């Protein structure tokens, strides 16, 4: 199925095209994805072993309706219970799972829904991840905002009332180095109460520096915990190194970050196993760093520019809802973020059950907030973006919609100390 991802741009030189094809067709031409590259910090940790042994032994076809019923009756959801809730046997119990999930969400978060917006400051990328619109072989308009441009974007977003921002870059150390990102964090502290980062994984001392610049939350998506599949999808670049990515959250916490976020991109591999591994990644790290704030996201594959042939691997809305309910029941205290890749209808429904955070006023392009925010609700995609979003509600609209659902929109509940 990998071939459906491969797109040859007519803009590539013959040499580049040849290298791309060799990466795609000759496994031996690719670097060992389990081997660290020079400069990548190696930490001692048993978290990965715990997560992977659970995932590898997970046979979801072994669980029955009885296991699911028992899991729903238990006060504390064990790992075994969670495995039952993620299994196909739980699909007929989706409504009961949603009821239990809603109860747990209200116990821990009341009726609050947090709002944030992402800001892409650069889309240069040194990796060839075959499913991603930013990949280095894809012909898109590349951009890196200057500090003046970043500040202008931030002003536009802050003027809309937003108080939490998530700064994103493509994964290019060369184009968007740590100092560049740090300066962006310092600017963000002027305009926002809370600053999160979703950038390439870095070393502990670099996370410490970024924390001192004002960031306190780090999001790293593992994409898939299936290392063999990972190898076939991430063909080139530092992102190819799977274990360095796995330990990113732990390095971030050691660097002083308050919270970390996790996810697999559901649909890349077996989503049940990836969902299990994502939640256990949170579970084992929480036991090791009990002060840390943890959150989970749940992206599915969405169409990307120049490639409309990708089909998510059976992660329909029902399966996504099942995964989110299972996350909530197993990890009642973690935040759950649902991005604008999902539809307004899905997000309106899921915030009543399990999600605690949604984005609003979203653009995944670079430097286009002013044009997007100046008009009314936008009705189409502008410029070159990482992926197309589905729910393009502005902050005001989202705020009102949440309040109309009887929930309480929250713009900030955080202090940088």
């Amino acid at each position, binding site marked *: 199925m990998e071939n459906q991802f491969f797109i040859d741009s007519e803009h590539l030189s013959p040499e580049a095209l040849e290298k791309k094809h060799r990466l795609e067709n000759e496994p031996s031409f690719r670097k060992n994805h389990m081997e660290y590259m020079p400069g990548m910090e190696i930490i001692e940790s048993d978290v990965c072993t715990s997560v992977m042994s659970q995932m590898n032994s997970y046979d979801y076809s072994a669980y029955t309706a009885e296991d699911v019923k028992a899991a729903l009756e238990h006060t504390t959801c064990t790992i075994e219970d969670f495995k039952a809730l993620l299994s196909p046997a739980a699909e007929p119990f989706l409504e009961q799972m949603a009821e239990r999930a809603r109860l747990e969400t*209200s*116990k*821990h978060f*009341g*009726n*609050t829904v947090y709002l944030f917006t992402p800001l892409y400051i650069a889309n240069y990328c040194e990796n060839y991840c075959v499913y991603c619109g930013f990949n280095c072989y894809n012909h898109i308009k590349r951009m890196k905002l200057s500090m003046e441009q970043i500040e202008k974007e931030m002003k536009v977003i802050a003027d809309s*009332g937003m*108080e939490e921002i998530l700064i994103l870059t493509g994964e290019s150390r060369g184009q968007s180095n740590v100092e560049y990102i740090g300066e962006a964090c310092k600017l963000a502290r002027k305009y926002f*109460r809370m600053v999160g980062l979703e950038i390439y994984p870095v070393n502990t001392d670099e996370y410490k520096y970024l924390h001192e610049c004002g960031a306190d939350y780090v999001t790293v998506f593992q994409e898939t915990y299936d290392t063999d599949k990972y190898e076939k999808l991430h063909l080139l670049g530092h992102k190819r190194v799977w274990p360095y990515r796995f330990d990113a959250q732990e390095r971030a916490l050691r660097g002083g970050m308050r919270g970390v976020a996790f996810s697999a991109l559901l649909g890349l591999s077996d989503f049940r196993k990836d969902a299990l591994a994502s939640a256990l990644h949170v579970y084992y790290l*929480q036991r090791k760093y*009990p*002060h*840390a*704030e*943890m959150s989970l996201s749940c992206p599915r594959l969405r169409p990307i520019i120049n490639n409309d042939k990708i089909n998510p691997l059976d992660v329909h809305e029902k399966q996504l809802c099942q995964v989110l309910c299972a996350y909530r029941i197993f990890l009642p*205290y973690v935040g759950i973020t649902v991005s604008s890749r999902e539809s307004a209808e899905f997000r309106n429904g899921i915030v009543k059950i399990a999600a605690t955070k949604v984005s609003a006023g979203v653009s995944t392009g670079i430097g286009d907030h002013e044009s997007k925010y100046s008009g009314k609700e936008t009705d189409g995609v502008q410029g070159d973006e990482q992926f197309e979003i589905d729910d393009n509600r502005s902050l005001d609209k989202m705020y009102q919609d949440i309040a109309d659902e009887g929930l*309480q929109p*929250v*713009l*900030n*509940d*955080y*202090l940088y*100390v």
Partner: protein
Amino acid sequence: MNNDKLIIGGHEFNSRFILGSGKYSMKLIEAAVKDAGAEIITLAVRRANTKEQESILDYIPDGITLLPNTSGARNAEEAVRIARLARELGCGDFVKIEIMRDSKYLLPDNQETIKATEILANEGFVVMPYMYPDLNVARDLVNAGAASVMPLASPIGSNKGLATKEFIQILIDEIDLPIIVDAGIGRPSQACEAMEIGAAAIMANTALATAGDLPMMASAFKNAIEAGRKAYLAGLGRVLTRGASASDPLTGFLRD
């Protein structure tokens, strides 16, 4: 009963219900003040750290004492910084210390709480520390200058009631400061029970916030707290442990 005041740091209060901050809404504040008679309302400084803060602060009626808390602090140093920020924001001198380094159960860190209490009491704050009910820690808090001691009844937000009742009773018996039961009170009967054993006040939030009819639940808490307080002041009758007491004394045969 009219002279029965709750006194914290030299300030007098008629109400023994304090609204917690966990799940905030305007409707909740309104019900707490109007229907539960709250005179003290907790405010999470981190939650007030928003452009929306005017609306929350503006809504709090005159005569209500704001009790800013330090939620989000993971150690004494962070709690002290948040408390100072609260004072700068004009939230007054009261502060409830909450220090958690556990994001799962949100249990308070007693050791760090003692440290923060001492620093803030020395700076003139009226310090109300949230703590896990431990007698030695409570004594340390007294020595550190606390104005009250706030033991948890059960994990915050759990509505599980007086899981730590025996230990709260010990604090009530041994500590000369108001013991305010905080966290875990899920229903009026549990609030009443805590008041019967001598708690000075009850702090609750989730129990009201998640009720079907908010004003009615607020009013139920008010009645329960007053009933428990009256029972405590009246002196509870004895509880018979084995059936009934014999009407013919067992020792009636003794002649001299």
